[in-house]
C-alpha cells in the first residue's frame, strides 16, 4: 500500500516538473540580466552573457545562486563556467530541473 502511494506521488511530481516552461525560465533569466543590458540591444537566446552585457563574473555567479533557489536546483561552478549564452543557461536549468 505504502509503496503504491509513493509511486503515485513520484509520477505526479514528475509530471508537474516537466511542465516547467522554457518561457518561464527565459523570463526569470532576463529579469536578472535586465540591469546589465547595453543600449537598446534586446536580451535574446544567443546573447553572450559575459560579453554582450555589462555583468562581471562575480555578479553572474550571484545571479546563478538566485536562479538556483528560484528553481530549486544547484548548478555546479564548473557547469556555470561552460555556459556562455542565455539559451545555454536556460537549457541547463531545464535539464537539471527535470532530473530532480
Amino acid at each position, binding site marked *: 500500500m505504502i509503496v503504491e502511494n509513493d509511486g503515485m506521488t513520484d509520477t505526479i511530481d514528475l509530471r508537474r516538473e516537466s511542465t516547467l516552461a522554457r518561457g518561464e525560465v527565459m523570463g526569470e533569466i532576463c529579469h536578472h540580466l535586465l540591469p546589465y543590458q547595453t543600449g537598446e540591444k534586446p536580451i535574446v537566446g544567443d546573447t553572450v552573457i559575459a560579453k554582450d552585457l555589462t555583468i*562581471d*563574473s*562575480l*555578479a553572474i*555567479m*550571484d545571479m*546563478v*545562486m538566485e536562479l*538556483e*533557489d528560484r528553481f*530549486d*536546483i*544547484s*548548478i*555546479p*561552478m*564548473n557547469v556555470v563556467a561552460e555556459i556562455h549564452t542565455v539559451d545555454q543557461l536556460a537549457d541547463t536549468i531545464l535539464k537539471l530541473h527535470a532530473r*530532480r
Partner: protein
Amino acid sequence: MGLFDRHAGLLEAYRDVRTTGYDPFQIRMERVLSPTEAIINGKKTLLVGTNNYFGLTFDESCKEAAIEAIRAEGTGTTGSRIANGSYNEHVALEQEIAEFYGKKHCMVFTTGYQANLGVISTLAGEGDFLLIDADSHASIYDACKMTQAEVVRFKHNDPSSLDARLRRLGDRPGNRVVVLEGIYSMLGDSAPLREFVDVCKKYGAYVLIDEAHSLGALGETGRGLCESTGVLDDCHFIVGTFSKTLGAIGGYCVSDDPDFDILRVTVRSYMFTASLPPSIVASVRQALRVVKAKPELRKQLWDNVATLYDGLAAKGFKLGPEHGPVVGVHLPDRMLAIGFWRAMLDAGIYVNVAVPPATPNGVSLLRCSVCAVHTAEQLEHMIEVMTGIGRQLGVLGDPKLRVVGGTR
C-alpha cells in the same frame, strides 16, 4: 589577440586607479618602524591596514627566537620536507599547534594560501561535493579550480542557503565538504558557525573552517571562532595562517582524522615547495607562546576595535555589520574609495583600498585592520582625519544638518 588583451577591462580600471597619483597596489614602505608606523613617501605614516592583529612582528622574544634559529640552523631549508626532510623545529611546531587545538594532527605549510589550496582541493575529489561560502577568500576559490569535485556556492553567512544545497544533493553518493571562514577578510563579519555546524551534521557533511583572521582574536584562549562558538570538536579541519596574528608567514591545518597524514604525500602545495626556514618556525613557535601567555592582547585588540568602529559609526560612516579586527568602511564607488584612500595616505594614515572585483557584491571599501598595540590616541586621530576627508568628499553630510536626524 595579444597576450594581455583579455585583461583589457582590468588594465583600464587599473589605469583609473593610478590617475589618483599613487598606485595602491605598489605602495612602498620605505622603512617599517614598528607594528603601527612606517615611512611611506618620506613621511611617518600610521599603519591601519596590515593584519598585524597582535603587533607581534616586533615582539622582542619572537625576534630573538628567529635570530637564534638563524645562527643555529642557517637561513633556509632549500627544499620541501618530503625531499630534504623535516627539521626538529617543523615537527615541534606541528605538535604545538595540534596541542593548542587539542587535535591529533597538524600539517604546516609555507603559506596559508597553499594550505587552503592544497587541503581543500585534495579533501574533495572526483565524485565528492565542495560547498563554499560566496564570499570565500581567493585561496578557497583557487582550490575549487583544482578539484575534480562538484563545487556549489551558498549565500554568504546563510545556513539556510547551505541547507537547501545539501538537501538538493539528495542521496547522491560522495563526501560533502563545507568550507567556512571564522572572520571574513573584507568586512570583518563572523560566520554563524553553530548554525552552520547543525546543518552540516544534519547531512553528514565535513566542516573545514579557515581561521586566518580569527586566530588569537576570538575564543577564550584565542583558538578562533570554533572556540568562541563552542564547536571545536565539530570542525573536522581547521586551517589558519602565521601571516597575521602570529606576525610571520606560513599556514597550517589541524584535524583529528586518523588518516590525516596521508595528506603529506598527496597535497602538492605541501610536497612541491620549500618548507619554512628555521627562523620563521622559531618566531611562530614563540608567537604562539605569547598568544597563550598574554590574553590581554586580545582584550586590547577588541578595545581598539570598539574605539575605531564606534567612533567611525558615530560620525556617520557606513561600516561592516559587526565589530571585528577588520573594519570595512563602505564608500559609494571605486573612484571615491581610491580618492579617499589617497587623501588618507597624504594625511599620514595607511589603510587598504578594496574595489570590485576583489570585493563581495561589487562594493568599494576602505579596509582597516586594527592592532592590539594601536594607542587610543592613534585611533582617535584617525577617526578625526577620516571625518574631515569624509566631509570634504561629500561622503559624510554637513554635521550641522545631521544633528536633527541623529542616528545613521
